[in-house]
């Protein structure tokens, strides 16, 4: 292929496309869950539910300060601690302090993308603690020192034999590639960790302000374990993951589990409102809720992108995106992959830094169609591209490609004045001649255009454009009257 220097995104994308295992997994994943979700939405009795939940999500964002204050008040009333963390470091420092006070040696984690976003694992490890992921997929990823490649199915890129070898090496079991046996081995190993951990560290799927609970969904039960057995529970919550009332919770959580895995509900939905009471001997003695901003208020402030905070992180958009379906999750180089990652990662971590994520989609619109809360991701991708095109002070973004910008300035002149446009076409038609191959197609072009001809032929500019044909035929007439009379129409 071309000798152009390639970005990390392109290299990782190619790696993904070159993996038969990943391709097979992505294919069956999208076939089952992507199509399944579209069918679910189409057949749902309550066709207004998605719009309603979206509306409530947006309304709650507009009143976020009130909701968070109410949540904090209710949790504190039950004896829980609430900490508001402006950024990643603040959240890490607070959690480290809790761990130090409680002499924590072992931390068990429930799956949390936010924990990856703020990179808290390495901070805990550097402070001398053992950190164990307990979601099976995340555990496998951790053992392999790899990165997750799907929001819901983190090790979708690994096959059973690789996992078998990994377990043989790390857990000392006899080699097997049988999923039930592998799961049983992890169950045993993780039970030990879960029962002896000093601290459980989880995310928060959805908090409810009116009742003062956080809720967590899981199928495995690991999150219930991590929030029940260790004496300390620290929950990390993105500040936008909140609903006002239980009724909103009911509808939102159902869209979450349907979008994620076509389930009416996940196996477990746990509501935690504080530490265990004196009457109740199991459950954590301390509960800490860490509410995290880390760039979210900046998104909230921009009406163009506020909508992305309505996301409930179900991962449905990954299950339909034709680009994600080819390249897999690693190319996104972020805890958030797929279409949602392509919007949220640049906003949280820098638009210039993640320019490939902004530009690397076809804007086909499938993600918008499947989103349980109808988030217009393509609109926001186009918005991000605008920041790259012209630069943006608000987003501290530089013009991404001045050459491209210049080309579009020229293009603008050309398309705004048709004589120039027509002359340009004539010149291009002359220039293309040497490149037209035997099948009347252009086989090879230079520069940027080689991106097309590396893998595809290109039709040449026609000998006569439609405009030229028209001008020749209808040089005089303004309006072409129909040749047939109106009576003959129903042929």
């Amino acid at each position, binding site marked *: *292929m*071309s000798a152009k220097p390639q970005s990390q995104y*392109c290299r990782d*994308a*190619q790696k993904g*496309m070159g993996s038969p295992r990943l391709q097979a997994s992505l294919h069956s994943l999208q076939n089952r869950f992507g199509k399944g979700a579209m069918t679910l939405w189409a057949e749902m009795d309550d066709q207004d539910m998605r719009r309603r939940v979206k509306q409530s999500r947006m309304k709650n964002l507009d009143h976020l300060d009130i909701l968070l204050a109410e949540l904090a008040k209710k949790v504190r009333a039950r004896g829980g601690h609430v900490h508001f963390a402006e950024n990643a470091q603040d959240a890490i420092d607070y959690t480290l302090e809790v761990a130090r006070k409680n002499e924590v040696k072992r931390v068990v984690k429930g799956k949390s993308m936010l924990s990856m976003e703020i990179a808290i694992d390495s901070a805990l490890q550097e402070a001398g603690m053992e950190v164990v992921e307990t979601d099976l997929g995340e555990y496998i990823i951790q053992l392999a020192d790899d990165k997750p490649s799907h929001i819901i199915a983190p090790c979708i890129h690994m096959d059973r034999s690789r996992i078998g070898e990994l377990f043989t090496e790390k857990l000392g079991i006899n080699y097997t590639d049988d999923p039930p046996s592998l799961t049983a081995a992890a169950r045993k190993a993780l039970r030990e960790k879960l029962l002896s951990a000093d601290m459980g560290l989880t995310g928060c799927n959805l908090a409810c302000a009116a009742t003062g609970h956080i809720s967590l969904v899981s199928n495995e039960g690991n999150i219930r374990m991590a929030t029940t057995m260790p004496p300390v529970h620290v929950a990390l919550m993105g500040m936008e993951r909140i609903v006002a009332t239980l009724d909103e919770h009911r509808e939102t959580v159902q869209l979450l589990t349907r979008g994620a895995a076509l389930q009416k509900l996940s196996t477990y939905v746990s509501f935690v409102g504080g530490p265990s009471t004196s009457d109740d001997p199991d459950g954590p003695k301390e509960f800490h809720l860490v509410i995290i901003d880390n760039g979210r208020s900046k998104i909230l402030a921009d009406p163009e992108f506020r909508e992305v905070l309505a996301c409930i992180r179900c991962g449905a958009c990954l299950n339909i995106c*034709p*680009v994600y379906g*080819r390249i897999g999750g690693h190319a996104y180089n972020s805890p958030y992959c797929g279409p949602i990652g392509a919007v949220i990662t640049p906003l949280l971590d820098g638009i210039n830094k993640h320019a490939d994520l902004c*530009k*690397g989609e*076809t*804007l*086909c*619109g*499938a993600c*918008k*169609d499947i989103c349980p809360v109808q988030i217009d991701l393509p609109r926001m991708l*186009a918005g991000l591209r*605008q*920041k*790259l*095109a*012209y630069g943006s002070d608000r987003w501290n973004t530089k013009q991404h490609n001045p050459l*491209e*910008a210049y080309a*579009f*300035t020229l*293009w*603008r002149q*050309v*398309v*705004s004045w*048709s004589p120039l*446009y027509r002359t340009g076409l004539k010149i291009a038609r002359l220039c293309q001649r040497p490149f037209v191959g035997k*099948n009347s*197609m252009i086989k090879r072009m230079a520069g*940027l255009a080689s*991106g*097309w001809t590396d*893998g*595809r*032929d*290109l*039709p040449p*500019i*026609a000998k006569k*454009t*439609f*405009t030229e044909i*028209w001008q020749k035929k*209808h040089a005089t007439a303004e*309006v*072409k009257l*129909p040749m*047939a*009379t*109106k009576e003959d*129409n129903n*042929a």
Partner: protein
Amino acid sequence: MSEKTVSLFIQCLVDTMFPETGEAMITVFDRLGVAYDYPPGQTCCGQPAFNSGYSRDAAAAAKHFIDIFEDTEIIVCPSGSCVRMVRHHYPELFADDQAMHSRALAIGAKTFEFTQYLVDELGINDVGAHFPDTVTYHDSCHLSRSLGIADQPRTLLNNVRGLELIEMRDSDTCCGFGGTFSVNYPEISVAMVDEKIDNILATKASTVTGCDISCLMNILGRIKRRGEDVQVLHIAQILAADKGEKR
């Protein structure tokens, strides 16, 4: 039948690379007795700039388009994505300019995709075409997802004499074109169109058709490179065919 004169909005790719698609549209209109004109001076709707983020440059193209088409009765275009650009994105481009915004809304309201115009506006399900061949249909994203046009082309195809429509798997999955995406990320784009072509080949249809020449150009370009034996035609070309001639 509408008394209105259709103003042809010929997408730049049709004008420059696939003029036969525009001619086919004319053939269909002639057969149906629809009056039409071709406003001179049209260039490009601005979509390439818009999709790449150059909204201000796209707005210049939009302004040019509005100037040219403003006095028309009905605008019909053989491309779903261009219609979507005019209808949905022109008003966005002029969100801060009340006068232009109104002009954009007015233009959008009278701009239709070719098959949509035939079926929804003129109430025509049968254009009197004859095309004795097996055909499969690709749903272009902006056409099907954004404009909701999926039944209209199928209705028209199903009423073409001799034509057998064979649905392909995942007909509404993106072909991987995506404008500058196809040039900026050719490996991903080609992987996507390869899957599309595999689905086309699996139908064993001899022709693949669609309502958007951009997607068809992408599919055609890859089919030629792979050396596959499938004909790629814009739907207008099929609807224009008669006497069983194969194009």
